[in-house]
């Protein structure tokens, strides 16, 4: 698989480590009433789709940036690559 890094251009997926579903960006509010349940679901439950999947990849052997890669789990085709930072800010996670 080739990941088209937004800053560095096309890089071999071997340079990266994958963490998993990009929903891990959406860390729940620890002060919420039902925080225990929210954290259980956040940490343990997955959509696990057959098809498009947004996931977090870390450029470990490169510039060490986190990326959100949209990839098909049916064909392994990489469809879109964004900086995780941009995604997190767009989701209001900059605090």
């Amino acid at each position, binding site marked *: *698989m080739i990941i088209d890094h937004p800053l560095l251009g096309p890089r*071999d*997926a*071997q340079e990266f480590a*994958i*963490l*998993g*579903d990009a929903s891990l960006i959406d860390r729940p509010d620890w002060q919420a009433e039902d925080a225990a*349940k929210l954290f*259980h*679901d956040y*940490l*343990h*439950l*997955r*959509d*696990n*789709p*057959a098809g498009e*999947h947004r*996931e977090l990849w870390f450029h470990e052997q490169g510039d060490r940036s986190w990326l959100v890669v949209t*990839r098909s*789990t*049916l*064909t*392994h085709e990489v469809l879109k690559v964004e900086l995780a930072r941009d995604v997190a800010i767009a989701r209001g996670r900059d605090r």
Partner: protein
Amino acid sequence: MRYSVLQILRQGLTGNRGWKPVWREPEPKRHYDTIVVGGGGHGLATAYYLASAHGLTDVAVLEKGWLGSGNVGRNTTIVRSNYLLPGNEPFYELSMKLWEGLEQDVNYNAMVSQRGIINLYHSDGQRDAAARRGNAMILAGADAVLLDREALQRKCPYLDFDNERFPIKGGLWQPRGGTVRHDAVAWGYARGADRRGVDLIQNCEVTGFDIRNGVCHGVETQRGTIGADRVAVCVAGSSGRVMGYAGLRLPIESHVLQAFVTEGLKPAIPGVITYGAGHFYVSQSDKGGLVFGGDIDGYNSYAQRGNLPMVEDVCEGGMALMPMIGRARVLRMWGGLVDMSMDGSPFIDKTPVEGLYFNGGWNYGGFKATPASGYCYAHLIATGAPHPVAAEMRLDRFERGAAIDEKGVGAQPNLH
């Protein structure tokens, strides 16, 4: 027809004209007492034990492809009961005991071969961990022998004992471990279930559930709606997809695991050997091919094929362990969908939907579990209570802080 030596002689003398198809191909009925979704090893074993241990024969197995087209026919056939944790080890030891009686029980040659499995250790710390694991195994009624370097050298002289980085110091040996012919397991259970009246329905993909007021009344399939009092899902790598039809999210990700087979060679490897300093395991099939594999690729996948970086990684592991393997040529390689759970351990449980049961999360190691998985799942479905050895394999265990994490790496499936 019962299979026996006498039968082979009789058929041989009469031109082999008397052999019958091994199972029927019935049309689905409109309603069953119990429907098992997924005709892999676990689904077929579940149907078999529902019929043989609990007398339930109004049962259908619905399989989207042909029987055994999933992982049961793609794995590297290793069976063992060398787990550490109390939530796991008694279950896997039950499975080992069921393997030992399987062929007589189902009257089918599954080539159960207890040629032993050796997990290598490369440091003092690893030796201590191996000794502890061996003790845990013996406490659960399994067998374990700690081999030092000399004893191991007598068994496998070709290992790279003096490797500069990871010298081999010995291994934990389970003599009763080994390999079993994977397809024959599926066929044996299928035949046994069919003979007891279970309907095996192929090319019948389940596409939804008939759930009303929180109760499951049956399944929707390519071949119409089929009613059932109990629906038992058992689809391994497709778990997330299928349970999604019932609106459930699981603590599971689907990944790809690859396997490799070389050309046939003279007997060299006595049992199964697993490398302790990387992820690599190898055995030799009866035809002589070296059967080996390693880690999962690491990313979510439903593609049933992997990528080259993991091929390289696995082969590096092989070269580091036994340099002679570099002379063998790989003939075939393939990938299968594995249902990786958040703690590396499986689930055999009821779901929040009444009448809907779930069996999955087998990771890369569910083949060895096939008999006990079917046995315990059938027990749960027939009696409504979990079998004692599977009592920890529950879907709510993360909420209760009762994960069964053999490797201790936490909720990240690609590290288990």
